[in-house]
């Protein structure tokens, strides 16, 4: 008999976005992974089919929504679909990327349907591989990287007799454990207390925009409320552009060394860079909240079970401009550590609590910036492929639920990529240029002189 399960908090987050924005497009995640080598596509097809069997999250489906729009998930036992192949080798790489970008915009519409598409591709310049398009409720980017590596381990096993990949954790078993943990009343009460205590101590958060205080002022006028502390969310024009900036290996090393020498995590340093910029752009506002994504993968089973484990929590800090850069970084780290301890909580409940306490209007938010730091590169980590050039690329789904979403990842040459996804309804490339420019100025001034106050850094950059 088929088992049906409710969604986890991380899945609910994506599901709620689909309901709010009325399109599944906001939940698409796509990547191409390829090698500059001849591939045996017959064998690759067999490996992809085998991966669908091994990686349970690829077989997850959702029931028809009930009256409240809620769905349940189940895992089909078999999915023996054919895997198509597309030949893009006659195009330039830019044209091929553009075409795959169009595929990434496609939606999975319907109930009880597969929410995962895999296409084998012949790419220009001798690259060959596969394109995967999935629903974020099934997988996050870490899960995708694990899958790509597992798939290529299968390929090299059959092709070169390398070792068969180790077993992956069972999706259903990990899902059951997650749901059990979420249902633990004692833990729930403790997590709720943590988030409620934060509101008790700090009161209602205050919106800060990348473009300065005028955005909140406009929202106040629109709502006829001079004391409004939240700004409107864009619901209609969700089109998103992406602007990438590459930080070279040497300055990247300086940031990483600073983190290592001061026992700081890169996420917290990046959060400090963004919040200092927001403070500068908003007349020195001290109370700043940024949404930070956490990938809840710690145990071996959590790492290898696939699924969508990425969830965002508000990182709210009130930092006095007199505080020095290093102390401010530790302040953020302290807040983040506590958040990690309470990250089993459903963040929708935090929003609900704020609406209840402060009568926050519908479709408004306290945050303009969202951060994901990805320590894990999209690289096929396989000794048989080590000397083969690879082409891997993430494709945006083209519909942003967030005003500005920054993904920071590491590049193969030891640098870092800052990928800014921004809603074109309100932001332009120039806004991203400013944000990146000031973030870098703030971070590098701060790591060079960690005793300098945040206020002085804001003045001098």
């Amino acid at each position, binding site marked *: 008999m088929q088992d049906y399960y409710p969604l986890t908090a991380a899945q609910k987050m994506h599901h709620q976005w689909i309901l709010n924005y009325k399109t599944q497009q906001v939940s698409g995640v796509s990547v191409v992974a390829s090698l500059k080598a001849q591939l045996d596509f017959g064998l690759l097809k067999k490996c992809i089919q085998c991966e669908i069997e091994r990686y349970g999250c690829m077989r997850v489906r959702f029931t028809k929504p009930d009256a409240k729009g809620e769905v349940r998930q189940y895992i089909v036992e078999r999915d023996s679909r054919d895997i198509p192949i597309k030949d893009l080798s006659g195009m330039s790489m830019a044209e091929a990327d553009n075409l795959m970008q169009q595929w990434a915009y496609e939606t999975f519409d319907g109930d009880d349907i597969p929410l995962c598409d895999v296409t084998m591709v012949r790419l220009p310049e001798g690259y060959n591989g596969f394109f995967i398009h999935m629903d974020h409720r099934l997988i996050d980017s870490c899960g995708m990287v694990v899958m790509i590596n597992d798939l290529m381990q299968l390929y090299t096993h059959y092709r070169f007799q390398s070792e068969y990949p180790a077993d992956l954790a069972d999706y259903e078993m990990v899902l059951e454990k997650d749901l059990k*943990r979420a249902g*633990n009343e004692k*833990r729930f009460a*403790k997590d709720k207390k943590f988030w409620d205590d934060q509101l008790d101590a700090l009161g209602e958060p205050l919106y800060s925009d990348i473009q300065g205080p005028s955005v909140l002022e406009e929202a106040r006028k629109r709502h006829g409320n001079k004391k409004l502390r939240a700004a409107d969310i864009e619901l209609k024009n969700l089109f998103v552009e992406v602007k990438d900036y590459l930080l070279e290996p040497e300055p990247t090393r300086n940031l990483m060394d600073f983190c290592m020498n001061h*026992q700081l*995590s890169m996420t917290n340093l990046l959060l400090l860079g963004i919040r200092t910029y927001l403070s500068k752009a908003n007349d020195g506002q001290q109370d700043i909240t940024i949404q930070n994504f*956490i*990938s*809840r993968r*710690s*145990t*071996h*089973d959590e790492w290898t079970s696939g699924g969508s484990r990425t969830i965002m929590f508000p990182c709210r800090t009130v930092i006095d401009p007199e505080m020095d850069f290093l102390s401010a970084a530790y302040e953020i*780290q*302290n807040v*983040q*550590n*506590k958040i*990690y*301890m309470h*990250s*089993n909580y459903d963040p929708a409940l935090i929003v609900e609590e704020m609406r209840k306490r402060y009568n926050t209007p519908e479709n408004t938010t306290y945050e303009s910036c969202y951060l994901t730091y990805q320590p894990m590169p999209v690289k096929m980590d396989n000794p048989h492929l080590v000397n083969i050039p690879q082409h891997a690329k993430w494709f945006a789904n083209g519909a942003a639920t967030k005003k500005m979403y920054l993904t920071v990842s590491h590049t193969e040459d030891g640098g870092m990529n800052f990928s800014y996804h921004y809603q074109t309804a309100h932001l332009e490339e120039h806004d991203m240029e400013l944000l990146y420019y000031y973030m870098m100025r703030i971070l590098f001034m701060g790591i060079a002189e960690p005793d300098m106050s945040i206020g002085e850094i804001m003045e001098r950059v």
Partner: protein
Amino acid sequence: MTQEMEFKKIIAQYCKVKPEEMTADMRFREDLGFSSLDFMSFLGELEDTFDVELEEEDALKVLTVGEALELLKKLQAEA
């Protein structure tokens, strides 16, 4: 299974070191490769498994496997 072994088995889920190879002086971050998130998740699992309540400030002072085990024993004795 002793409590110490059960405790080490939980740690082993988060790293590549086997429970029987784990020593009290091993540091979570440097020797076992725990990230901040791993460590905080581990503490949450300790609370659920052994039915204890950790004070966040005390928990954040823990650096080694031995210190974590001592803290657990102290909390159980106080309960």
